[in-house]
């Protein structure tokens, strides 16, 4: 805000610090401490989970083929790192590909549904019905059409993740204030004008919020398809490991999916915060 020359704080008085400033300083320190705690909290909680899990397994001597210890799972991650790397790359590829298709399709359909009440009424039951179908039931159909492997995984990831994008984009567009619409219409704005100038920017927070949900759902879709019909990907790796009673490797696969999910979620979280600063008024 460079154009604001006006109110500046007066220069700090020399000599002993006035009580107000001192209080401010301790408060600042407390805030900083609070900040550090906040940053550490997720790490503490996650490590805590692993510690408890490890203790339960050891304390009750749970056999490895029922529930492996986290340490055994970490060892498996390292031991099978080449295979895991290969399959994780495949899963990430199918997930992101399906997700990208979902974004493009979801935005287009969301724009259509959100800008017309008639289209909304027409498509709504179909969308809800489609979303209610368990996607695992769709995989056999996709396999019949496209064979096993990459394509059904991409499509399952797409099918499972486009719905929240459609709903959110449509909601963002449909909740435009009627007064604002009147103002714009009276200026001679076309539907397209209203969509571009107001609709899309307004729908942005809704859109970015849906991306976080969609990317995690996309992982569900791709891994699901891989477990049923693929010879590549983390899903396949886990299936084949479980058929060999290699439970540490199964859990290693789970952890890798979880980590990929967290990383992707965080990426979109950051993008969201950046793109829609105005909506959170930080």
């Amino acid at each position: 805000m460079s154009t604001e020359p006006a109110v500046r704080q007066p220069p700090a008085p020399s000599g002993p610090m006035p009580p107000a400033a001192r209080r401010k300083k301790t408060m600042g320190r407390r805030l900083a401490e609070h900040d550090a705690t906040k940053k550490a909290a997720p790490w503490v909680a996650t490590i805590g989970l692993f510690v408890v899990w490890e203790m339960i397994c050891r304390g009750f001597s749970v056999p490895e083929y029922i529930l492996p210890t986290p340490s055994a799972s970490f060892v498996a991650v390292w031991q099978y790192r080449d295979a895991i790397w290969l399959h994780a790359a495949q899963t990430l590829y199918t997930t992101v590909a399906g997700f990208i298709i979902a974004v493009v399709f979801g935005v287009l359909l969301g724009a259509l549904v959100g800008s017309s009440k008639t289209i909304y009424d027409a498509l709504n039951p179909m969308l809800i019905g489609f979303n209610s179908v368990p996607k695992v039931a769709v995989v056999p159909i996709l396999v019949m059409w496209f064979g096993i492997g990459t394509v059904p995984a991409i499509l399952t990831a797409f099918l499972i993740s486009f719905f929240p994008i459609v709903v959110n984009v449509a909601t963002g567009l449909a909740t435009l204030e009627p007064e604002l619409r009147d103002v714009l219409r009276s200026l001679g704005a076309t539907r397209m004008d209203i969509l571009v100038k107001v609709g899309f920017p307004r729908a942005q927070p809704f859109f970015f919020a849906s991306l976080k949900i969609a990317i995690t759902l996309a992982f569900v879709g791709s891994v699901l398809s891989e477990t049923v019909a693929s010879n590549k990907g983390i899903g396949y790796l886990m299936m084949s490991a479980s058929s060999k009673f290699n439970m540490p490797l199964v859990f290693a696969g789970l952890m890798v999916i979880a980590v990929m999910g967290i990383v992707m979620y965080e990426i979109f979280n950051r993008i969201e915060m950046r793109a829609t600063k105005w909506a959170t008024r930080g």
Partner: protein
Amino acid sequence: MSHAFIELDRVRLRYREGDDLALEQTTMSIREGEFVAVVGPSGCGKSSLMKLVTGLMPPTEGNVIVAGQEVTDPISIVGMAFQASTLLPWRTTLDNIMLPLEIVQPHRSRLRKHKAEYIEKARTLLAEVGLSGCEDKFPWELSGGMQQRANLCRALIHEPRLLMLDEPFGALDAFTREELWDALQSLWMEHKFTVILVTHDLREAAYLADTIYVMSKRPGRILVRRENELARPRTQDTSFTPPFVDLVHELRDEIRSVRAS
């Protein structure tokens, strides 16, 4: 009355087939440059009147003529402002005010080449309502009164011949509201556009308008047309003079009898 700028001739309005009438037998005639206030009990169809005159809604019966032409579609010589300021939170104040220029012709096609000239115009307008220095602030960094000032600027940037205001100051505190009356009055005296102000604040109507229309309960009908001869510019002091107070009393009695009926 052939020189009227806005002419409503026995207009009736029904929102939907089978609904009750929202407006009945409404006849108005407004000169160019006139400041008109429409007052009435809530739900009397004041907002319907706005939609009719701006062409957002066609009359069920009768004619609406603005600037010599029958209104059938939204007319672009109008600027509008509502109680909710509806400034866009992702745009700075300056960019918000420039919005109409991106839509309305001929500015739309000229905007890119003459950007500097238009920005200068927007800054001047902001300065007129006392918002210099707020150009790069976002709407949520402005107070409610400042937002409404910016809202007025947005309604006026494309130099509309007609300004439609639907209870623009309804959500403000009393002090801020009276400041904005002065701001609006001086804009109007400077630029000489026609104003239709819909309000339920009788003092506001008496302070600002040349002509005050009192409307009945739904279905809305115009009951009284009252000229307001008080000298311009009206000030806070004017509002304590006997003629002003009498006018407000008179309007209040009208409204009371409407509500009782």
